[in-house]
């Protein structure tokens, strides 16, 4: 009863909340602005969920939940909102819900968000009693973000976890030291801290037997010429003072790790100087986290990130090193740069080129489409290539769906359209006439586009690559609305000639082609030329009454017309390019045509 009235109150007050409705309205008009979302969620939490306790009305809870969900759908790389969301649920005691949210965030970031991992593991430390299960999570985090430049806090967490859960007994201590030993080699920002921890551990050694924890038994005999296992040695050791020997061995051990320190320091400094410092120096445009779609990161950040990634690629000597490359790709993408196709394409290309991981490449590109809604044609083209190879086009329906979902064919640029046309054609070729109803009418596709847009450049493409005679089809439409403009274009005729010469499958013989061009196309084009001149002249010469003046004007007009209309030079160009021997014949044709024009 009580909760019910509570709910009713909350809903009532929400209905009367003008600020809330204003914020919602704002949001509807600007759904891609992060600030409007932030205002809304802050308003909801401040006014309806503080202090947070389990008495939170269901409706409000649902509202906040769905708001969080919406934010994270709109902005999948907002790491801190996953944490906020999870903590919100955690405070309400919904443990499994909290874990789900963390896991969802990690999944979306390909398990490569340092921030999420740390918070998630802290959460697990608090709630989970299943040591083995948690250890699994730690190991997963190790492979995914262990090489992160700022992974220090994670490692501290891990070390603490080991110490607490595996105890301070002998075995636990060994595990602890093994992990610490591994961390020593990782080039990361906090590396020095771990060295001092390691040296402290060495200092703590009290007995020769503890030395095994720092290096395997065999190595003590090979590297330090002290066989701690053999009986005679043990006896010998028992008979003398062990203190100085231990001291000496400790010094030797320390020296080895001091050298390792120099090596790691070199790498840390290199990365820091070249990349991390320039990235962190730019406070105004964050290079480490996502803020909004509006403020695309500065060009400088992009440059540094691309160089950083290339550096990791160049350094990857072993397949194991790929994890660092992937980590840094993901780090780069979890900033505002995720809205640029460059990085996504580079990522997929790297997967193809160096890892032969085609499914991975395809997956990365699928992810990218979540962030890139416009100008994604390069991505879609790349995906089409991969899908064709992996044969995941599912008889073409998948591929067609990809294009129709992500590219607006009617409004896209010509080059993209051509690619689309090519893929559709390819699907038709591949299907071997099995299901004609699934075939796309690619001829129709081109004709529609030409009629709609009158793109001369498309004719250029068609004339050099396609066997279908689109020119004939266009000529049949002569007289239709707006078609004359296309047919009167000089390049239309040039490409028609080129098509006949290069592609036409019906005229097999060069002689046939030649005679077709000289006897059919060129005269036809000249007819059009004369017609359009008549039109031109009539328009321009109206209102001139004086005969002599008219004649004068006429010759002037003709000259001007010849200057404007480039048909003749264009055809001449074709003849020079392909039929040099017929130049004189061509000139005769032109002269005849000019005479006709003068008589008009």
């Amino acid at each position: 009863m009580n909760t019910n009235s509570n709910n009713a109150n909350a809903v009532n007050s929400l209905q009367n909340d003008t600020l809330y409705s204003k914020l919602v309205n704002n949001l509807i008009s600007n759904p891609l602005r992060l600030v409007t979302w932030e205002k809304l969620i802050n308003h909801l939490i401040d006014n309806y969920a503080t202090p947070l306790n389990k008495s939170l009305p269901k409706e409000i809870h649902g509202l906040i939940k769905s708001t969080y969900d919406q934010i994270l759908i709109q902005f999948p790389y907002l790491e801190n909102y996953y944490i906020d969301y999870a903590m919100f649920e955690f405070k309400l005691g919904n443990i499994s819900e909290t874990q789900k949210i963390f896991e969802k965030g990690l999944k979306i970031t390909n398990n490569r968000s340092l921030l999420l991992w740390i918070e998630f593991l802290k959460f697990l430390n608090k709630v989970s009693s299943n040591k083995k299960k948690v250890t699994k999570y730690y190991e997963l985090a190790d492979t995914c973000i262990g090489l992160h430049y700022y992974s220090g806090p994670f490692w501290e967490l891990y070390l603490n976890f080991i110490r607490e859960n595996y105890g301070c007994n002998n075995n636990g201590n060994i595990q602890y030291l093994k992990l610490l030993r591994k961390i020593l080699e990782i080039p990361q920002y906090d590396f020095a801290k771990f060295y001092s921890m390691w040296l402290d551990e060495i200092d703590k050694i009290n007995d020769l037997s503890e030395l095994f924890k720092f290096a395997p038994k065999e190595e003590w005999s090979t590297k330090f010429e002290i066989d701690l296992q053999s009986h005679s040695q043990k006896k010998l050791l028992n008979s003398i003072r062990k203190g100085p020997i231990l001291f000496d061995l400790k010094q030797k051990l320390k020296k080895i790790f001091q050298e390792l320190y120099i090596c790691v320091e070199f790498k840390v400094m290199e990365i820091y100087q070249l990349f991390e410092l320039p990235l962190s120096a730019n406070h105004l445009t964050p290079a480490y986290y996502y803020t909004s779609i509006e403020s695309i990161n500065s060009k400088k950040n992009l440059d540094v990130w691309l160089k950083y990634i290339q550096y990791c690629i160049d350094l990857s000597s072993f397949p194991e090193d790929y994890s660092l490359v992937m980590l840094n790709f993901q780090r780069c993408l979890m900033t505002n740069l995720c809205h640029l196709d460059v990085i996504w394409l580079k990522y997929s290309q790297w997967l193809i080129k160096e890892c032969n991981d085609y499914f991975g490449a395809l997956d990365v590109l699928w992810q990218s489409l979540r962030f890139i809604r416009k100008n994604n044609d390069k991505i879609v083209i790349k995906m089409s290539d991969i899908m064709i190879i992996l044969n995941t086009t599912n008889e073409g329906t998948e591929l067609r769906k990809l294009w129709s979902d992500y590219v607006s064919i009617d409004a896209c640029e010509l080059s993209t359209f051509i690619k689309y046309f090519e893929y559709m054609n390819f699907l038709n070729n591949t299907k071997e006439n099995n299901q004609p109803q699934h075939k796309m009418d690619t001829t129709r596709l081109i004709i529609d586009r030409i009629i709609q847009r009158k793109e001369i450049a498309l004719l250029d493409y068609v004339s050099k690559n396609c066997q279908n005679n689109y020119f004939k089809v266009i000529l049949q439409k002569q007289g239709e609305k707006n078609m004359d403009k296309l047919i009167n274009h000089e390049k239309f005729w040039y490409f028609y000639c080129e098509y006949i010469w290069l592609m036409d499958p019906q005229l097999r013989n060069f002689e046939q082609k030649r005679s077709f061009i000289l006897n059919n196309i060129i005269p036809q084009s000249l007819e059009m030329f004369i017609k359009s001149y008549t039109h031109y002249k009539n328009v321009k010469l109206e209102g001139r009454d004086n005969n002599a003046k008219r004649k004068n004007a006429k010759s002037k007009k003709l000259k001007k017309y010849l200057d404007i209309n480039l048909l003749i030079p264009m055809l001449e160009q074709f003849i020079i390019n392909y039929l040099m021997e017929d130049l004189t014949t061509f000139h005769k044709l032109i002269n005849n045509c000019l005479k006709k024009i003068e008589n008009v």
Partner: protein
Amino acid sequence: MHAIHTNMAINNSSEPLILDPNLYLDSNFIKENSEWEKAYKAIDWDNNVQSIDTFLHETEKLVIKYSAPNEKIKRGICTCFNLVLTRYPLFFGYWKKFTAISYRLYGLDYSIHVLERSVNAFPHSLELWCDYLNVLVANKSQEYDFIRSKFELASWLVGYHFMAHPFWDKYIEFETKLSAETGEYSLIQDIYKNVCKIPLYHHAKYSTNYRKLIRNLHKDSPELLKMEEESLHKSHLPVQNILGKLWEFESKIKQSFFNLNPLPQNELTNWDNYLKFLLVPSSLLNSSNIPEHFIETVFERCLIPCNKYEHFWIKYLVYKYKRKDANSIKYLSILKRGLSVLPDDRNDTLIATALTCLHNSIFTEGENPSIKNQFFQSYLEVLIDLYKIKPKNHQYVLEYLKIYKLWNGIKYSSHHIDKNRQYNLNNYKKYVKNLETLLQKYFSKSDYHRTLDIDVRFFRYMLNDNSIDTVIVELIKVRWFVFKETLAIKKIFATYWNRPQLKNSVKFWLLYYKFQKKVKDFDKLASFFTRLGEYIFLPTLVINDMLEDYKTFVLLNGNLKDITKKSEDFWLTLDCKRNDPMWSKNKIKRNWTTKRYKSAGHAGILVERPESQNSVIHRKVLKKNSAQELPTLKVPHHMNNAIKPINYFTTDYLQQYGGNTKMNKILKGNAVGKNK
């Protein structure tokens, strides 16, 4: 004794000149004259005239320093001058200096010899001719036949110079003296007649003098005098009229001598306008007013300061070509002269112009077959000469094939619009056969030229591994377009596709690609693209275009089977080759020794990085129960030293990778100089 030395010097210098002064000067001498040595080493031949000047100045100092030099030193000094003047014979000032010094060292005869060499090397120098003739007249006045022959030669070479009055004064003085002795005036009259027709700066002086002379000579016969005066008047007036116009241009010539620095733009424009003015036939200016030879002399004068400007050479060549003398081949000498002075990268237009002129000469001029043949032969010779200069230029081989075909009537015999074109198939067959034998012999490396057709034999001079592809492409094209033999073409491709000579021939591979596209041989295309970048090296831009085109072609004409036949991922690796043609799946090497690894993060700078050779980074820690091994480190010795960038322009690098590049030669040259 003195005479013997002089003779020796003269005799020796007619042999090939030795151009290294160090051959004569021993190390002690060089030590004593370090300033001279410094100047010698500092010479910058191409750009810095000051350095050459300093060098010769230092050489002059040697002459003053050693009042009685021994033979070695004398020769060394002469060599210094020869060194400069064989390279730049147009420095007339240095010739003068050289003359003075050789007079001092070897005496009169040798200095006259130097002067003679100077006018041979620089025949259009007014100053040098005046000096030479002055010396001859002053010292060898007895040998007047010899001197007269020199005067006559000079009057042709420099007499038409606008400012040639010092020369003509000298000539007239010389002849007047002689005629006073012999009483024979016809020669001097001829000279005057000639001079009065030339537009000279001092034209008025000569016509007045001539009038005086005639009046003196024909005191007794007034009729003759009147006739002569009239003819003088006739020739005097038009020249007088033109002088003012010429002066407009002549007065603007500020630098008439040769220099290494670029000529100021206004000078260049002036020369250009001057020549334009002379070459445009206007009403005021017809050939009777200005002697042709005057125009030629202006050209020659212009080419002294404008020696390095291709534009003027072309103008001169075209002018000569249009003159159409009886022996038109003469214009080729201009091509040769131009090529000898113009830099390699600035003579293409001149060559192209010359070839077009020759082409026109062969196919348009006259009907006389012997003259045509002569033109044809010289065309071939020019091509071969050019080929020697630029062996990497395919253009000349193409030109040859073009001219050969035209010459032998290998073309369509009829091209009427309504009739099909007919080929002279017999001629074509012969042509194809010739090409095939040529190729066969070329690749079998036999002494092939003897077995060849006489016309093709010429061709052997032009073929090398760079240009052989042109012949193959021509053969394939004829077979494809004229004979339409697809099988034969496949055979030709099979024969040649593996030849190392064709590894980087764009022409050949483009044709191959087009042909395979035409016959839709997807297997061949796929293996072609697999080889591309690995065995076939084409420019990256060409490869990019091909990749683009190939993708379109396959998508429009092929199906899934076609693209996965070769290997599953062939289709995707195509994109990897874009902008990175050397990329190949098998080639990716990953280890610490690769250049890629060492230069990561800083392109071009190789760094040895410290490495842990048994890294435990990627291990899962919690599996094993024993401790991790100790690190085995690879620490470079000079880890903390500053990083050094690779200098791609060091001598070593170029010698290793640059082959016969121009830069390499220059660097080698410098290195040799430094060693000495």
